[in-house]
């Protein structure tokens, strides 16, 4: 039996799957907004604002989910400050969960500042001093650093899983990469839907097109990495010979990746009358796929406890 | 070390520390058990055996040993056996062995119940006269009890009561006692000529030859047939035992209730004793047969007995069935003139002084008349059989849970007929709640309104809530202190008895009835000294009780007796229990509280730790640890030896300290003076270890394999004699037995304990830390049976016997399984019996399956071997 099978599940599924999902989207959203902030056009500004706002909300939600997951939520701050030598900070750069906590804090700050900046830049002049978080070089540097943290949040969750001794998670090094790509891709899908909902107009059409294009390539990459991940597990991949495996194939690979890819690159495969909805449908499917990717990776591992790991005897 | 008839690791885990230490020192451990248990897990060899077949196995070992090269070559064995056992003694000419009578001994007759008490329940009885030593007078011992018998030793418990002829007297013997009895002269008058012997061990009537013939049938093939134990494993056990016995090495046996709970339980132990005597493993360090006793102080409860047949210190209880009218008659009937028991008059008179104090005088035979007498078997099963017939009106149930006990539905039928029942316990047990929660009440078979019993419940303290003493399995008394105060109204058992006694005494104060004089005169004063605060109001002083047990000079109560050698039969000493005399030799010396171990690395007996009766000896009959000349058998096994002037050693010598090894016996003397310097077994009339048991057993002088009362096979050894011809069986509709080989009950079942629970579970099934470890009742069945019956692990199954049907979960395992018995494939199954309906973890009462059948010597039940059926429920 592989060594990882002698460990105990942390039972992370309930809050942590939503956290990983939301965190990935939030981080990805910030990146997308920052890309448009840097290299976009003036017409992208509402999208940038929307992206920052959504990423800030996502960061807050992430923090809430993470806190609720704790056995003692009121001690969330113990991850940042030493409870016994308050207010000395605690920071373990080799522990993803430790850096992750700091990164989430940093990301939340950046996302909030960028949101405020973008809002100030578009809104009443009374708060124009806050435009500094958006305008010019400072704003862009802020965006660049924020994007770094955004990417971090999107990807560290997978690294966190690998830096354990649990089956599947610690048996491959691809989960971080996989979650990162999936995070950006789900962020793109989210942004597409947000644009459709709040900012649909002629000027955002090309933004949506960019997002769709970007997402398509991300999905292709993700599919490749997913295969690499499964291959890297070797015979341990057999743990998916169950309902979770079915979910992996149907919900993650087919519904979450292949169908959206087809919608992007081969719209002709679909009936004429469906095509107007293809962008929205694709985005929704990507979100479903991204969600279940995390469900499958976490739950399949959490379901393995030493007492029932007869699989490899 | 052979562990057989016990699951020592699971049931005596703390004591099992020592076998494990021995194992680390290179000892080999053998476990012989129907199941592969946690003891087997750490043993070097596990040998499966069918429950109830131990005599066949041990008999096989005896036969093998006697015919082995090693035993016949090494002079040690011959020397030990001829010096220290009765191998050379000649047996009465009229003796007939099972070999001659197809499985029976001479003297078998029908048993007739006494009209006074019809619950003795023997299916037959032996007149034991023909089993006696040949004393050269050319006479067979009379069929009904003789003085000659007492000359040899003491009767079996059931015989002590007078239930069997051994103890009964044909007519009045000797003068009835006046107050001027000279007890020494009386004892001397009991002397008989010494038994004849053949030191060459050649005479066909000598014990050695009888034993050899008796066990010749027990071949390895026969062992395999009867026990189902593979021949190769049996031979391995024999080999290991022989290798590990001799001058340099000793082997020990450890057993517990899987040897006792049989219709021939006493004979199993006797058989082991025979084997160990042949191997020279008795009375020497590292040898012996260790009875692993059950409860923490169960040894104490036989020493200061809660048993029906004896009074303190293993004296027979005065009985209405015996010639026990007067003290003199009692002494005449119970005293062995030779050996240490010749002192019985001193023990008895000192005991009566402890009972009746100043009221006990020479003139009134020390109050002997006031002492109650028994009328037959008043043991557990007999009493409940009587109770079920409505012959018992009330019961104090103190520290027992009979509602889950043997043939539990019969016992509960008994409980239902009581007028009143007092339960004094730490918990509301099944016995306290049978009238509203027993299965037969719940399912409506019995109407709660029809139960007229008035039930009283008294909350009890726990052992750590008062001080007192434990006597452990090593006969060692250890004082324990009060660690915490009991909650609420909980009171100790001593409180209860003491205050009940005080009230009864008060109630009888004005009675003039003769039968009440005992109560009026009984000495009942353990009041704490003025100024001392008892732990509970009204609690007696535990040390005053200990003082009475230890004894004191009658006219100087603060002067305690130093030991039982100081006892007198003139009333000048008061001592409740002669064997405990010496444990509290002075008011400031409670030796039971001593805690001084020997320093590490020293091979001592730890004489400074607690106090072991008798006289703080740790190994009984330890004179045998030296050879006939008094030298240690070997350096390695040095224990007690003669230093030229006296016996010395690591232990307290179990011998007359200054009697030289070469001292001859004095044929005119009584007591120890009648024994020679090699007569090491000083409690025996002839000073010998008994291979052949002329007195003491009611079911034969030698162990013989009989089948349990319920068995799937005919007795392969003696097909004409299926089970013990004298076992006890209580006839009752609720106590039906399966026929031999009844196809409706094809499996052999045994019952046992788990480390995680305690007995009826009353004490363990309420404790979450224990119930999570063994949450449910189960039955262990082998994979073959599971397959045959389509039973999967954890399936619910139904277990049936002619008495009842219960349910349990199946635990399918290869630790138990099929045994080939007498050409039949027999499935062996087993159940722990800790469950009942109270507590956190509840389950069916396993004892509803068991029957009221018992050993004829001691009335213990046969809960260890019966037959059943198992089906998927």
């Amino acid at each position, binding site marked *: 039996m592989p060594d990882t099978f002698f460990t105990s599940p942390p039972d992370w599924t309930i809050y942590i799957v939503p956290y990983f999902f939301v965190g990935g989207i939030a981080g990805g959203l910030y990146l997308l907004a920052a890309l448009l902030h840097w290299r976009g056009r003036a017409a992208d500004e509402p999208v940038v604002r929307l992206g920052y706002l959504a990423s800030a909300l996502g960061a807050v939600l992430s923090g809430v989910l993470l806190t609720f997951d704790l056995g003692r939520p009121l001690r969330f701050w113990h991850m940042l400050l030493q409870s016994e030598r308050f207010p000395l900070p605690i920071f373990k750069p080799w522990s993803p969960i430790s850096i992750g906590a700091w990164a989430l804090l940093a990301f939340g700050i950046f996302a909030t500042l960028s949101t405020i900046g973008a809002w100030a830049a578009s809104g009443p002049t009374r708060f124009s001093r806050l435009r500094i978080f958006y305008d010019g070089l400072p704003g862009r540097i802020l965006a660049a650093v924020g994007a770094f943290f955004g990417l971090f949040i999107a990807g560290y969750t997978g690294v966190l899983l690998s830096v354990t001794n649990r089956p599947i998670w610690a048996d491959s090094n691809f989960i971080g990469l996989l979650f990162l790509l999936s995070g950006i891709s789900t962020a793109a899908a989210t942004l597409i839907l947000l644009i459709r909902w709040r900012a649909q107009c002629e000027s955002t059409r090309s933004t949506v097109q960019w997002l769709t294009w970007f997402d398509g390539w991300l999905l292709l990459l993700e599919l490749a990495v997913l295969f690499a991940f499964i291959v890297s597990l070797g015979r341990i991949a057999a743990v998916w010979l169950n309902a979770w495996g079915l979910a992996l194939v149907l919900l993650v690979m087919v519904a979450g990746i292949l169908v959206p890819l087809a919608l992007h690159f081969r719209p002709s495969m679909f009936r004429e009358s469906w095509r107007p909805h293809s962008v929205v449908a694709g985005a929704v499917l990507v979100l479903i796929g991204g969600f279940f990717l995390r469900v499958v990776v976490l739950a399949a591992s959490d379901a393995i406890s030493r007492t029932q790991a007869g699989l490899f005897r | 070390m052979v562990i057989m008839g016990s699951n020592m690791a699971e049931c005596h885990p703390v004591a099992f520390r020592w076998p494990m230490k021995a194992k680390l020192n290179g000892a080999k451990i053998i476990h012989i058990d129907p199941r592969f248990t946690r003891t087997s897990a750490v043993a070097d060899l596990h040998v499966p055996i069918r429950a109830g077949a131990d005599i066949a196995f041990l008999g096989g070992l005896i036969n093998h040993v006697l015919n082995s090269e090693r035993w016949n070559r090494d002079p040690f064995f011959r020397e030990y056996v001829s010096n220290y056992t009765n191998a050379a003694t000649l047996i009465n000419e009229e003796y007939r062995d099972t070999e001659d009578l197809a499985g029976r001994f001479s003297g078998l007759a029908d048993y007739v119940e006494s009209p006074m008490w019809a619950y003795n329940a023997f299916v037959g009885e032996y007149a034991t006269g023909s089993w006696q030593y040949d004393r050269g007078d050319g006479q067979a011992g009379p069929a009904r009890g003789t003085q000659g018998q007492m000359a040899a030793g003491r009767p079996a418990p059931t015989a002590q009561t007078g239930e069997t002829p051994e103890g009964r007297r044909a007519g009045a013997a000797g003068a009835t006692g006046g107050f001027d009895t000279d007890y020494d002269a009386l004892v001397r008058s009991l002397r008989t000529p010494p038994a004849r012997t053949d030191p060459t061990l050649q005479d066909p009537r000598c014990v050695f030859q009888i034993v050899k013939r008796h066990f010749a049938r027990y071949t390895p093939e026969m062992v395999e047939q009867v026990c189902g134990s593979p021949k190769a494993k049996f031979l391995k056990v024999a080999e290991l035992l022989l290798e590990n016995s001799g001058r340099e090495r000793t082997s020990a046996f450890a057993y517990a209730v899987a040897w006792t709970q049989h219709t021939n339980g006493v004979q199993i132990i006797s058989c082991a004793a025979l084997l160990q005597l042949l191997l020279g493993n008795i009375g020497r360090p590292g040898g012996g047969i260790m009875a692993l006793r059950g409860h923490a102080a169960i040894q104490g409860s036989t020493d200061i007995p809660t048993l029906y047949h004896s009074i303190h210190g293993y004296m027979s209880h005065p009985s209405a069935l015996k010639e026990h009218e007067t003290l003199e008659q009692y002494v005449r009937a119970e005293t062995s003139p030779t050996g240490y028991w010749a002192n019985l008059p001193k023990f008895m008179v000192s005991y009566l002084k402890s009972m009746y104090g100043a009221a006990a005088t020479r003139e009134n035979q020390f109050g002997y008349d006031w002492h109650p007498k028994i009328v037959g078997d008043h043991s557990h099963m007999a009493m409940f059989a009587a109770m079920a017939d409505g012959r018992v009106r009330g019961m104090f149930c103190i520290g027992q849970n009979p509602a889950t006990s043997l043939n539990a539905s019969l016992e509960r039928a008994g409980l239902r007929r009581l007028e009143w029942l007092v339960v004094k316990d730490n918990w509301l047990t099944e016995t306290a709640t049978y009238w509203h929660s027993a299965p037969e009440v719940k399912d409506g078979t019995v109407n709660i309104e029809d139960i007229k019993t008035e039930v009283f419940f008294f909350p009890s303290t726990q052992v750590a809530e008062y001080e007192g003493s434990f006597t452990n399995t090593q006969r060692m008394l250890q004082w324990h202190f009060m660690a915490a105060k009991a909650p609420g109204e909980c009171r100790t058992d001593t409180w209860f008895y003491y205050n009940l006694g005080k009230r009864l005494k008060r109630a009888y104060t004005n009675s003039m009835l003769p039968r009440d004089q005992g109560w009026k005169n009984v000495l009942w004063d353990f009041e704490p000294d003025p100024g001392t605060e008892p732990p509970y109001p009204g609690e007696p002083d535990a040390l005053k009780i200990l003082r009475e047990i230890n004894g004191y000079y009658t006219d100087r109560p603060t002067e305690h007796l130093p030991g039982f050698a100081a006892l007198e039969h003139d009333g000048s000493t008061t001592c409740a229990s002669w064997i405990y005399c010496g444990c509290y030799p002075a008011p400031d010396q409670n030796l039971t509280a001593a805690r001084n171990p020997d320093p590490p690395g020293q091979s001592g007996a730890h004489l400074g730790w607690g106090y072991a009766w008798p006289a703080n000896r740790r190994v009984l009959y330890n004179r045998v640890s030296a050879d006939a000349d008094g030298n240690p058998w070997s350096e390695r096994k040095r224990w007690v030896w003669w230093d030229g002037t006296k016996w010395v050693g690591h232990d307290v010598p179990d011998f007359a300290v200054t009697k030289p090894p070469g001292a001859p016996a004095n044929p005119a003397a009584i007591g120890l003076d009648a024994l020679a310097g090699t007569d090491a077994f000083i409690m025996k009339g002839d000073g010998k270890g008994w291979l052949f048991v002329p007195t003491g057993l009611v079911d034969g002088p030698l162990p013989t394999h009989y089948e349990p009362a319920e068995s799937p096979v005919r007795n392969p050894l003696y097909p004409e004699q299926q089970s013990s011809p004298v076992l006890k069986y209580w006839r009752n509709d609720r106590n039906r037995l399966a026929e031999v080989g009844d196809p409706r009950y094809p499996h052999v079942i045994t019952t046992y304990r788990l480390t995680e629970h305690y007995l009826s579970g009353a004490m363990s099934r309420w404790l979450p830390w224990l119930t999570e470890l063994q*949450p449910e009742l189960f039955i262990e069945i082998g994979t073959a049976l599971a397959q045959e019956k389509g039973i999967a692990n954890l399936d619910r199954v139904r277990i049936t016997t002619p008495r009842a049907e219960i349910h349990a979960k199946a635990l399918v395992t290869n630790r138990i399984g099929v045994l080939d018995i007498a050409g039949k494939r027999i499935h062996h199954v087993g159940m722990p019996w800790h469950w009942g309906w109270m507590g956190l973890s509840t389950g069916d009462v396993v004892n509803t399956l068991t029957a009221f059948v018992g050993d004829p010597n001691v009335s213990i039940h046969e809960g260890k071997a019966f037959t059943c059926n198992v089906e998927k429920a």
Partner: protein
Amino acid sequence: MDHPPLPILPQTAVTTEPMGFYTDTTVCIGCKACEVACKSWNLLPAADGGVTEMSGDSYDNTRQLDGTHWRHVKFIEQFPTEYNGRWLLMSDVCKHCVQAPCLEVCPTGAIIRTEFDTVVIQSDACNGCRACIAACPFGVIGMNDVAGTAQKCTLCYDRISVGLEPACSKACPTDSIQFGTISDLRERAQQRVEQLHANGVNDAYLYGADPNGPLGGLNSFYLLVDEPEVYGLPRNPQLPTRNLMESAVLSTAGAVAAVGLGLVGLRKRRMDEISDERGATSDE
């Protein structure tokens, strides 16, 4: 009346040498005294108030180590056929790893290494993130729902720091669990292995006694007679951070690729727009 003096509880001098357990599974009798002693000393609740079902897995009904079972006795039946085999018994506990995976990942610093070189979770600092549970290669840690924190054996820090032996080893009747300084224990264990080899038990070996072995050695190590996996132990327990570098590099590469891809896309959009504008102009 005066009783003879009772011996004082034997006290081991408090040393700050590495301390731990040597567990000789060949003398374990599966009595579970260690399990109960631990619960009793540490006041740990029984599962479901003690009202549970039997597991059907031999005599093991608690099944695992977790937040309320800091000791757990394993029962491994190896019987190819009836009456023919062996029953391995082993009392499992935290290994007090010299390089402790749980300690490595704990973000709050709740897990500490003590002066006895043991690994202790300070319950008052732990926030229940459960990273340690996933990190421990032996499945030792679990949540204690009463406390809301991750818990495991403390090696009776409260007892050993006042010179008392841990509750479990103290209760162990056969000395299957032995407590002491690691150097002593290793010596004792080595002797026992040699004794067993001399007696023909060639499979006996020590698991976790090697300071150069996995995790720098285990301060609670075992004498076993079968493969580690048979006892539910990993053959080669490792630190979780072994995966950190590779995972981080791959993710970083992915991040760079994604940013690049996004920028390419934006540039493509600009290009497309320019060519569209041109096209539109030329159309005019």
